[in-house]
């Protein structure tokens, strides 16, 4: 992965994330298996981009390529720009499809994990961890162990963990999949607020079209296997967004458009 090797800036502002014809195949039992093919899109700094697409189409793979956990076979992946430098070790916060809490650590110690690995000051980080846990509605659960929490609570703790080191880019892989509908709505509102206040760039994988529309400034629609770009749908809904917006005509229009792009109408 190229990381902001300050190439001469073109006249327009460089995007924060630049993906060009990214391609990735897995080898399983001797067979090549194309998981991601020709994915091309840009993300400006501070954008909230939702990735939607059918199950198994390569969304998680794409996030892992961005996090440099997987290598892509061809194409270009660049994160960072001259005016927004990107340090791959401390500027990525990742929320995985599972909560992935360490069972031998308390909730707050789990949230502290990235701070420990990056060697951030422990005392301040602990304060911050408390604030983040309160933000995701887990105040009072700091000293519990993961198995004492419900699946949804564990997932919320893992969201707090992704923010602890204040990264510029947050990659979220269906973070709300394990939540009940009500908590999910609440978390949507909360995440949208956090995003607007923090100015972070967020890539967010979801299966919920309405969640994608509600949260994002741009939706990337991927086709079924292998993930190819179907379309980019810019979303411009008035701010601040509320849950009631989901019943607007404007909102429904976006939804119809995305369903069409997914070939569901």
């Amino acid at each position, binding site marked *: 992965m190229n990381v902001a090797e300050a190439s001469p800036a073109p006249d327009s502002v460089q995007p924060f994330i630049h993906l060009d014809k990214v391609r990735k195949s897995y080898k399983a039992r001797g067979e090549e298996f194309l998981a991601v093919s020709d994915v091309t899109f840009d993300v400006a700094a501070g954008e909230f981009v939702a990735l939607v697409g059918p199950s198994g189409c390569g969304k998680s793979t794409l996030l892992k390529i961005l996090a440099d956990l997987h290598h892509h076979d061809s194409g270009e992946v660049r994160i960072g720009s001259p005016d927004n430098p990107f340090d791959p070790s401390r500027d990525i916060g990742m929320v995985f499809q599972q909560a992935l809490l360490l069972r031998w650590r308390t909730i707050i110690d789990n949230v502290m994990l*990235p701070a*420990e690995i990056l060697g951030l000051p422990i005392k301040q980080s602990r304060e911050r961890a408390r604030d983040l846990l309160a933000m995701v509605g887990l105040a009072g659960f700091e000293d519990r*162990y993961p198995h004492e929490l419900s699946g949804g609570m564990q997932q919320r703790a893992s969201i707090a963990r992704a923010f602890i080191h204040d990264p510029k880019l947050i990659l979220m892989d269906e973070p709300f999949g394990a939540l009940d509908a009500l908590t999910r709505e609440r978390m949507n509102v909360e995440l949208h607020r956090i995003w607007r206040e923090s100015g972070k760039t967020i890539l967010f994988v979801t299966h919920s079209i309405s969640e994608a529309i509600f949260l994002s400034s741009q939706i990337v629609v991927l086709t079924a296997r292998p993930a190819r770009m179907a379309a980019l749908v810019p979303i411009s809904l008035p701010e601040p967004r509320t849950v009631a917006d989901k019943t607007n005509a404007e909102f429904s229009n976006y939804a119809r458009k995305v369903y069409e792009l997914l070939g569901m109408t």
Partner: protein
Amino acid sequence: MTFSSHQAKGKPPVDLAVDEPDSQPSPAWTSWWRAHWLAVLSHLAMVGLWSLASTRMPKFILPSPLDVLLALMNPRYNWPRHMAVTASEVFGGFALASIVGVSIAVIFSWWLFVSRAMMPLLVTINMIPKVAMAPLFIVWLSYGIGPNILITFTICFFPIVINTTRGLKEVEPDLIDLVRVLRASRGQILTKVQLPSALPFIFSGMRVAAVLAVAGAVVGEFIGSERGLGYAIMSFQSTMDTPGMFVALALITLVGVVLYGLVILAERCFVTADSRASK
């Protein structure tokens, strides 16, 4: 007994009296007694049968419990010295095996080709009955405590290295990705994720090793030593000192029980209740 870790961390214990509304919060020994009285009874019954049987047999075949107790009290036998020798062989060999075993398993997890080459070799070597190597070790290291530590070490080493290797292999790959995103160093991945996650496996290896450890040291003492409880048994055999042999056996068992108990205790401290449940 088992609901330790959370109370140990200073949290209010769960109210266990709910099921028994009439029971007052009882002192610890009462509940211990309630859980273990049958076990205590069976041990007492065995001693009872033993003393009954010993009245009908000559002392050199089956000494009475009293004879054995007298042998234990008799300073002529020098028990503390023998016991110290055996204990240091057992604990030394076990500690060495734990350190070397875990380290080698870590090396295996870091370099796949080392593991590919060495693991099958270890399995082959493991097929050699370790006690049969004792005479060889004595040739190499001469008499004394050295060869006996080595025998104990070889016996303890395999279960620890094999279990730890398995534990390190079975760490959920996503957990490693979680810290790889942060460019964690190899050492950080090891200490923050791999080792804690493999801890239940490491301890189950250590438990197996703790049971075997004593046998290694004692066999070593049988054939090449002038000290230790194993040596004591051999020398009492030649003088038909059966009470002495009984005491030596009991003390050997005691050494093993203490080692096993310490392993269990450490496991209780370091492995949280949840990972024990989900093992």
